[in-house]
């Protein structure tokens, strides 16, 4: 392959890696938003906790890597269930300002608890993968990157299947569309909420655990992740799962290509400019509420 084609392909691969992660995180956010009508400002903290707990389990408790990842996610799910039961259950019909303020407070709370427990030190999760890069036609990647892409893609597909095929998924979609009617036909809204919140948190935590192998996590990482997730969700359309997936991939690839061929200082601006464009020309987002 010619040199410039190789570079383009490398940028694309980089973009897909990051885009898959964006898509996974945004899907979790959309799930919480779509079903519970809550803009979860603490979403990034679920990512952060997934990463930190995985690090803790692997490094300090000696759990095997492939056991630690799901274990970390399970712990975050447990936390989400506790939060849903203790706090969000009371907010079922609360106005938007209330729920948003609560998630902002929660985000602050989790960030500082993490700072208190683990300190500000960034941590990287030790992985069992060999560190030598793999190359194909001049494009480089590592076993860990491939693992990340595989896991995130699998989780996205799994999420999609859960929503489309399972009973709970159907219940979630029904609640999504019409809460009152769903309650009337016997769907237990509280349980649906719990599943949605737990699943959304699980997706974010999984992303954190899996990416933590090559992107160090620290307690303040949550804020940046939440912001990216919101950008994807605005682009894709709030409440659209397809929008979250496509939006995440598109943003990841657009950032990689943008940074690849423009001055790199403005890479983050790509997402924001895209948001501005969407707002001006297609305010509902690329995909309407599914």
């Amino acid at each position, binding site marked *: 392959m010619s040199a410039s084609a190789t570079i383009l392909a490398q940028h694309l691969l980089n973009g897909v890696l990051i885009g898959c992660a964006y898509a996974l995180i945004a899907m979790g956010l959309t799930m919480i938003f779509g079903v519970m009508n809550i*803009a979860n400002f603490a979403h990034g903290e679920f990512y952060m906790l997934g990463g930190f707990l995985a690090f803790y389990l692997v490094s300090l408790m000696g759990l095997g890597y492939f056991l630690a990842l799901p274990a970390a996610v399970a712990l975050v799910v447990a936390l989400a269930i506790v939060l849903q039961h203790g706090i969000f259950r*009371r907010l079922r019909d609360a106005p938007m300002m209330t729920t948003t*303020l609560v998630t*902002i*407070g929660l985000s602050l709370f989790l960030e*500082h*608890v993490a700072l208190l427990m683990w300190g500000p030190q960034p941590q990287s999760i030790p992985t069992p993968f060999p560190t030598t890069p793999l190359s194909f036609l001049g494009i480089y990647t590592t076993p860990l990157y491939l693992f990340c892409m595989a896991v995130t893609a699998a989780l996205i597909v799994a999420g999609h299947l859960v929503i489309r095929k399972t009973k709970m998924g159907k219940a979630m979609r029904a609640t999504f569309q019409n809460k009152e009617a769903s309650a009337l036909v016997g769907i237990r809204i509280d349980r649906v909420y719990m599943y949605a919140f737990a699943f959304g948190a699980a997706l974010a935590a999984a992303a954190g655990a899996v990416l933590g192998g090559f992107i160090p996590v620290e307690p303040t990482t949550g804020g940046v992740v939440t*912001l990216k997730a919101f950008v994807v969700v605005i682009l894709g359309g*709030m409440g659209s799962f397809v929008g979250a997936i496509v939006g995440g991939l598109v943003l990841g690839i657009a950032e990689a290509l943008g940074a690849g061929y423009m001055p790199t200082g403005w890479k983050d601006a790509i997402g924001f400019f895209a948001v501005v464009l969407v707002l001006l020309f297609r305010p509902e987002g690329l995909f309407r509420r599914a």
Partner: protein
Amino acid sequence: MPETGRRLAAAAAVLVLAAVPLAVRDEYYLHLCIVAGVFVIAVLGLDLIVGYVGQLSLAHAAFFALGAYTSGLLFVRAKWSMWLGLPAAAIATGLIAFVLGSVILRTRGHRFIIITVVFAELMKLVATNWIDMTRGFMGLPGLQIPALYVPGIGAIDLAAKGRFYYVVLAAAIVAFVVCRSIVRSSIGRKFILIRENEPLAESLGISAFRYAMIAFVVGAALAGAAGSLYAHYVGFVSPDLFNFSYVTIMLIMVILGGKGTLAGPALGAVIFTFLPELLREASHWRMIIFATILIVATLFMPRGIVFPLVEHLLPARWRTRDAGAA
């Protein structure tokens, strides 16, 4: 409380506030008073949109920072003193809010909130990367408090904390009076109607968009003015002013102080300027406690903490049931 009682209380409050520099000699506490005063102005503006109209704007800290930058840039590049810089900052911020509002105020719900966050981040990105104009993270240093030229007396130096306090106090009183006149006028009543029942308001021909815009622009202008004062006082402007932490502290001040009132956020600003400083030692715990208080108060205390507390301490005769105006 009857109207004359209120007027007396207000006059007494102003007198007490004016006497502060005479009683408090400690420079550090004066410093905190000044910072608190600046935040009073900023959160009064935030309360207009959050408390009265009922829209959660997270762009307010960005307006504060934009005001600081406007004033700072005019000082550093065009040698404009704060006397010109402050109104310029207020006007510039108001204009930016006008443009932003025209695009986003028709949106409702969560998208509005998130877009205000994205806007703030975008402004931070510009401040950080437009190095030729803003010097990025190197910031704008050397800002000064100007002297006051009084004909016949000459230039009065205002840099001393005891003196600058009066500048901030005057500005805060002006901000309070402006907000109060808006809130007590028919505009204020329309704010509340829109907040409580938007469809009804629309059916009566009251454009939610137009009134939200008024609150948004005036609020932003106040934040911009506060930013200008802050910039000249601290002497330095940098992109850190766009950090989300300013948003959260302003929200805490408004919500816990009591949104939808005027005295509430003002008191909230004072309390939550002093409290973090008094709790300096317990840094992480401090934020954990604030976050918990925010969650608990949002869930269980919609009128905030300040008013219920004050009412609890006041004799029964003076208590007011009226939460609509201050």
